[in-house]
């Protein structure tokens, strides 16, 4: 097979599970057989193809193929097949096949089985991609993907709370580890200058010498340990037993938990060999080994026992890798394979027991051998392998472990204690293996079972048989069976440092053998002594309080509650603190430059003080202060005073050569006052006294004081800025252009207006859009407006006045208001046409003199409002049909169309055109598109202002669907 064909095959193998996953996901919910068939075919095809690729790796060259993904960051998808990855890929695929076969029978047809197989295949693909990664980032990528797919698998029975929380815990722990791993590999990448695995593997010395080595190591180890359930991250694994048993058999024996191990092996050549590596990895492995084994002893749940035993065995592998010697690494790889075979079969057996007996509780199980002898035999063999009984594969790797533990690696205390501690772990291991077998298969027939167990269907047993056969064959003929593959893997993993080792069963009487025997004897003896006590155990002694899940939950809840506390402390939901912060921050950042460079007013000559202006302007300022003072309790007074300020600023604008501003401000001022008054009607009349009869609390006084300080600071800052700027000479940049071109190229003398409708007409277009939007928003919001209950009724004045009219002979309700308005109404009606004419006047002359569409529009709407005030809504609308929305639309469209007309002549948007037309008698009349644009502005402003004011005014004449409870009857009826 050529390299090219092999590459294609490799891609095919990788993509097959993903494609299969999608295909299976599309199947109907109940199609268990079809799903299993497809999944099995995919896995089988993968296994076969991967096996076919073996020659590529057997000669040590391996296979590498890639596609570009994110080349600029050195992230490419590279598939890298060597001996190590081949063996892991084979584990993933082959055990996958077995698990799928098993699952076909295990899963109930009532479950949505296609989804299960879809997840399983997706996981398989992710796992494959992980081991095949030739790029560290790619590896981290698929690493997280395995976390996600395993999350889905663990949470498959999501109707169970335990499955949901277990899935979540597994996800959080492993994904967190994955994120650490990502940073870790990025660090490695930075040290090496590449994320390419080959490059990285070739740079071990550089990596270990780098200052980033330790952080990178720790981060990567966290990743590996979380995935491989090493102490202190081991706690998620037992809970993950909430998953269907095939998932446990697959993920928690052969694949997912081995991802961490795979990573440690993969990076062993570059990361191992340092003191830090030794201390961390060895001690974590050792602790995990002992803790896992100890906890396994006390489990009453079959799967729990297997889970802790898995933890313990993963600890063994980690320990081996930590020792750092090449031989230990060989042992680690070997034990990885062995553990996968016996643990997968044990899980499957446990699943059968669960299925048949209806329980996994060791205390309820007993004497099952008589019901299911074949399964029992298989389980016994597998358990023996787990316990390290000779002639089985577990024994071989265990011997290697003991040999390495006895080897003197360095001077540390850990190294000295290692053999003893490992032996203790092995004793526990024997103990729980014996307990597993004896408790379930031997003893009297079970009494607490709901149904009579049977032997499982043959096809369901087949995977176990295959695996147990592997245990036996490897155990007896290691050199012939696993030898070549292991050799290829070891060479690929360790590179040049591959040691000489032998896979013989018999190495003579040696210390490891002695320790092995001791472990077997003591373990069995301990079971005989403590069997009954173990059955009575509710919790794991010594570790009872260290329940992983409880701690995990506690950590999370502490995290959440402290986050909530911090959110309250560092954030706020109230408006005032937010505004306060904004003002403070603005003041502070504006102050900084002056702290550095100093503050100095400019040197430009000052303008002479003009007493008229100065007086008015200071009175305006005084109005502002007085308004601020009154605003809380005397809203009307505040409105009046703020109007005074506005008026003063109008006068200021007149004085300071800005007549356009003065006009506009004046008109807007009027509308705003009416607007605010319209609003006041819906606000509460009197404010409740917050502290009736008491003195204002000190905290409030303090806050007011600080607000005052902030206000003064802000004011002083703005004043200082304004003063400094006004006393500097004006930079001569772009304004000259407008002054010089206004008449000649803009066709208008009023430069401000020409800027608005021509030079910067685009601003104006945006500005009128704002007005339109606001008007529409106001209108929309008020269509659903619900006033506060006490405001629904007519204002008190009206009720009293109407009552008065009713109570007096010769008066009809409404006389008071009618008398009140009779004369003003006549005058206001006569004023109306004058305002209209003035508005037209302002509009037409705007281009040359102060005025323009906006001022005209506002004036026009004031005319309208005046009529509403004098005659009332219904009366005006009976005669005058105002359709403000149409005005708005027309205004916008005219303005936009005027601008767009230029496009027809291939000029940019809003290019203006003007021409002086010579008309007999009349003389020159200016024709300018700007005037058309201004017409749009005018229409829109009339429409928008009217829409806003009328929408608010209309609230007074709305009728509730039915009388509001709480509202008085008189209040809801309007004339």
């Amino acid at each position, binding site marked *: 097979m050529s390299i090219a064909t092999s590459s294609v095959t490799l891609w095919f193998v990788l993509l097959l599970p993903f494609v299969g996953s999608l295909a299976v996901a599309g199947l109907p919910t109940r199609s268990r057989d079809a799903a299993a068939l497809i999944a099995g075919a995919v896995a089988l095809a993968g296994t076969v193809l991967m096996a076919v690729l073996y020659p590529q790796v057997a000669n040590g060259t391996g296979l590498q193929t890639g596609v570009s993904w994110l080349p600029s960051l050195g992230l490419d998808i590279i598939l890298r097949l060597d001996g190590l990855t081949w063996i892991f890929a084979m584990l993933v695929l082959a055990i996958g096949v077995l698990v799928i076969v098993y699952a076909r029978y295990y899963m109930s047809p009532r479950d949505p089985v296609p989804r299960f197989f879809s997840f399983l295949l997706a996981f398989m693909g992710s796992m494959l991609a992980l081991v095949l990664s030739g790029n560290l980032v790619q590896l981290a990528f698929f690493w997280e993907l395995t976390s996600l797919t395993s999350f889905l698998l663990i949470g498959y029975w999501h109707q169970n709370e335990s499955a949901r929380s277990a899935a979540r815990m597994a996800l959080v722990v492993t994904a967190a580890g994955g994120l650490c791993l990502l940073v870790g590999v990025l660090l490695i990448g930075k040290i090496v200058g590449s994320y390419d695995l080959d490059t990285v593997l070739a740079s071990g010395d550089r990596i270990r010498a780098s200052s980033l080595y330790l952080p990178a190591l720790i981060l990567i180890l966290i990743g590996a340990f979380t995935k491989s359930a090493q102490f202190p991250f081991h706690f998620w694994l037992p809970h993950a037993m909430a998953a269907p048993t095939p998932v446990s058999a697959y993920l928690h024996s052969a694949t997912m938990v081995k991802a961490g191990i795979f990573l440690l092996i993969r990076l062993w050549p570059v990361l191992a060999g340092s003191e830090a590596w030794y201390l961390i990895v060895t001690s974590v492995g050792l602790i995990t080994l002992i803790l896992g084994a100890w906890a396994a002893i006390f489990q009453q749940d079959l799967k729990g026992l297997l889970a802790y035993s898995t933890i313990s065995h993963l600890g063994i592998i980690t320990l081996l890798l930590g020792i750092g010697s090449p031989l230990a690494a060989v042992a680690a790889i070997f034990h990885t394979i062995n553990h996968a075979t016996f643990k997968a079969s044990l899980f499957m057996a446990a699943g059968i027991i669960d299925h048949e007996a209806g329980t996994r509780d060791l205390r309820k199980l007993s004497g099952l051998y008589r019901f299911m002898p074949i399964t029992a035999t298989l389980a016994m063999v597998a358990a023996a392998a787990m316990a390290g009984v000779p002639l089985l594969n577990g024994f071989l790797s265990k011997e290697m472990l003991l040999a390495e533990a006895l080897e003197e690696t360095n001077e540390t205390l850990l190294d000295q204690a290692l053999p003893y501690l490992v032996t203790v772990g092995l004793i526990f291991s024997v103990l729980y293996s014996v307990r597993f077998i004896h408790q379930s298969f031997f003893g009297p027939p079970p009494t607490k079972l709901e149904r009579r167990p049977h032997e499982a269907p043959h096809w369901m047993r087949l995977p176990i048989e295959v695996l147990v056969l592997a245990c036996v064959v490897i155990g007896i003929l290691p050199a012939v069976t696993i030898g070549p593959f292991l050799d290829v893997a070891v060479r690929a993993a360790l590179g040049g440092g591959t040691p000489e080792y032998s896979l013989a069963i018999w190495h003579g009487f040696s210390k490891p053998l002695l320790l092995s025997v001791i472990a077997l004897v003591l373990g069995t003896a301990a079971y005989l002594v403590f069997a009954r006590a173990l059955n009575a155990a509710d919790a794991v002694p010594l570790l009872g309080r260290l329940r992983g899940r409880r701690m995990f939950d506690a950590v999370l809840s502490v995290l959440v509650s402290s986050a909530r506390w911090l959110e309250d402390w560092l954030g706020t939901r109230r408006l005032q603190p937010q505004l306060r912060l904004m003002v403070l921050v603005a003041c502070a950042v504006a102050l900084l430059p002056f702290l550095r460079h100093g503050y100095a007013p400019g040197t430009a000559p000052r303008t002479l003080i003009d007493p008229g202006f100065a007086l008015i302007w200071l009175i305006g300022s005084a109005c502002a202060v007085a308004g601020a003072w009154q605003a809380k309790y005397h809203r009307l007074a505040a409105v009046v005073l703020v109007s005074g300020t506005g008026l003063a600023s109008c006068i200021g604008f007149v004085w300071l050569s800005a007549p356009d501003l003065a006009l506009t401000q004046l008109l807007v001022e009027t509308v705003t006052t009416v607007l605010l008054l319209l609003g006041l009607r819906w606000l509460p009349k009197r404010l409740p006294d917050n502290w009736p009869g008491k003195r204002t609390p000190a905290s409030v006084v303090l806050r007011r004081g600080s607000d005052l300080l902030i206000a003064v600071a802000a004011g002083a800052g703005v004043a200082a800025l304004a003063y400094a700027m006004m006393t500097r000479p004006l930079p001569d940049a772009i304004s000259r252009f407008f002054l010089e071109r206004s008449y000649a190229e803009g066709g208008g003398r009023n430069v401000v207006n020409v800027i608005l409708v021509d030079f910067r007409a685009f601003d104006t277009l945006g500005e009128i859009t704002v007005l339109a939007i606001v008007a529409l928003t106001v209108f929309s919001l008020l269509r659903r407006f619900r006033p506060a209950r006490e405001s629904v009724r007519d204002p008190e004045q009206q009720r009293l006045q109407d009552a008065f009219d009713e109570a007096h002979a010769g008066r009809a309700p409404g006389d008071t208001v009618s008398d009140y308005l009779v004369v003003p109404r006549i005058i206001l009606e006569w004023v109306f046409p*004058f305002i209209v004419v003035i508005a037209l006047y302002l509009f037409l002359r705007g281009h040359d003199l102060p005025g323009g569409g906006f001022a005209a529009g506002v004036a026009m709407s004031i005319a309208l409002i005046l009529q509403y005030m004098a005659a009332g809504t219904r009366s005006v609308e009976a005669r005058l049909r105002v359709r403000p929305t149409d005005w708005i639309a027309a205004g916008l469209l005219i303005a936009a169309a005027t601008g767009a007309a230029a496009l027809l002549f291939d000029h940019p948007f809003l290019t203006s055109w003007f021409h002086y037309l010579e008309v007999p008698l009349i*003389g020159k009349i200016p024709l300018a598109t700007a005037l058309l644009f201004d017409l749009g502005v005018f229409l829109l402003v009339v429409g928008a202002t009217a829409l806003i004011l009328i929408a608010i005014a209309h609230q007074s004449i709305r009728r509730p669907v039915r009388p509001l409870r709480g509202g008085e009857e008189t209040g809801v009826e309007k004339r």
Partner: protein
Amino acid sequence: MRRWLPYPGLALALLLVWLLLSQSLSVGQLLLGSGAALIGSHAMAVLRPPRRRRVRLAPLAKLGALVAIDVVRSNLAVAAIILFPRKGRVSGFVRIPLELTERGGLALLALILTATPGTLWVEYDQRKRMLLLHVLDLIDEEEWATLIKSRYEVLLLQAFEA
């Protein structure tokens, strides 16, 4: 004519205002002003459909002159009150029955009384045709009533209701 030009008097006034504002008597401004006046008078017609009615100008002219004199006199009087307050000055409300019912006339009377310092039109009861007036320097209620009726109301009645 009415359809095209409601309120011709108003239109004329509007044109005048336009010309005053534009400070020009050019043909262009005349045309523009006429257009604006037309629009303005139509606006008025929408608000209040015009009714056929004659207003005599002569009494109004006489009234104008009277008011001008009165305003100046009252200005001085009120200024004196403000600058040199005297003890015993009373201000108060006066109720005056009016014969005038024409809206324009009433409005004009209200303008005159209010614009004249010292008197203030407060309210008009349409059913009782009673005017409520506030007077700054109230010496004799009766005197005020006759003064207003004989000096202003008569002329207004002549102008509007003859």
